[in-house]
């Protein structure tokens, strides 16, 4: 990966073939995971109303779609009903933008809207991985007992670098 830079109103970046495939796969997994949160009836989902009764039993989903009130379950549930499906729909759309940006390979130039989708989707992907690795508090290194976990930990760090680079390019 070459770090992102601002260039003529876009943000330009470059990923290797391996990195491109990895990003597309991760975005695909987010889409799959979040799709399960939407009702079968897509028309209902598109209206954006409806939600689950409480935080998901999957800690990753629970982190992406947390309660809006700390100690008011009723208000949290009402908030979910009004916002959850549209929030999930937007998160899926963000991941799809990330995927599509890489359709033609790793040399990309992101317009303003795409940059916003990338920032949010990278955050979502990192939150899901962190949850899988048991990263819960500042300073947690995360599980690293198996090769898979070690690899996932490296991917997590790398995604942090990608997102950080995007923020730097926007700030620059």
């Amino acid at each position, binding site marked *: 990966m070459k770090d992102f830079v601002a260039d003529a109103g876009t943000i330009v970046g470059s990923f290797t073939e391996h990195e491109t495939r990895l990003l597309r796969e991760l975005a695909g997994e987010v889409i799959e995971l979040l799709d399960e949160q939407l009702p079968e009836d897509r028309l209902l989902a598109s209206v954006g109303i409806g939600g689950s009764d409480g935080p998901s039993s999957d800690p990753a989903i629970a982190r992406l779609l947390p309660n*809006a009130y700390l100690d008011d379950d009723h208000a949290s549930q009402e*908030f979910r009903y009004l916002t959850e499906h549209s929030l999930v729909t937007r998160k899926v759309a963000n991941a799809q933008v990330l995927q599509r940006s890489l359709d033609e390979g790793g040399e990309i130039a992101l317009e303003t809207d795409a940059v916003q989708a990338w920032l949010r989707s990278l955050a979502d992907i990192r*939150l899901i991985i962190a949850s899988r690795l048991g990263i*819960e508090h*500042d*300073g947690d290194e995360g599980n690293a007992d198996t090769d898979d976990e070690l690899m996932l930990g490296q991917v997590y760090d790398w995604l*942090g670098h990608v997102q950080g680079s995007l923020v730097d390019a926007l700030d620059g």
Partner: protein
Amino acid sequence: MADTMEHTRLDEQLLLDTPWVTIVWNDPVNLMTYVSYVFRSYFGFSREKADDLMMQVHGNGRAVVATGGREEMERHVEAMHDFGLWATVQKDGS
């Protein structure tokens, strides 16, 4: 009687006027630069204010990032969840 009613009305008014707050909570995942960027781009805060709030989140575990009506605070919380930040609404002082 009249007095009591008057008091009730005043209490209700007071309750309605009690501001709500949007709180952003610390998490070990989101980058400090990203959190500061979110505060600047979404709330329109200066870099100094955004960095200060970000450090509050990081150091104190939480920061109040907005105060106002309940619906407005819920909109902010939804926007924060959009960004992947952990945020909640509550009545000010509770």
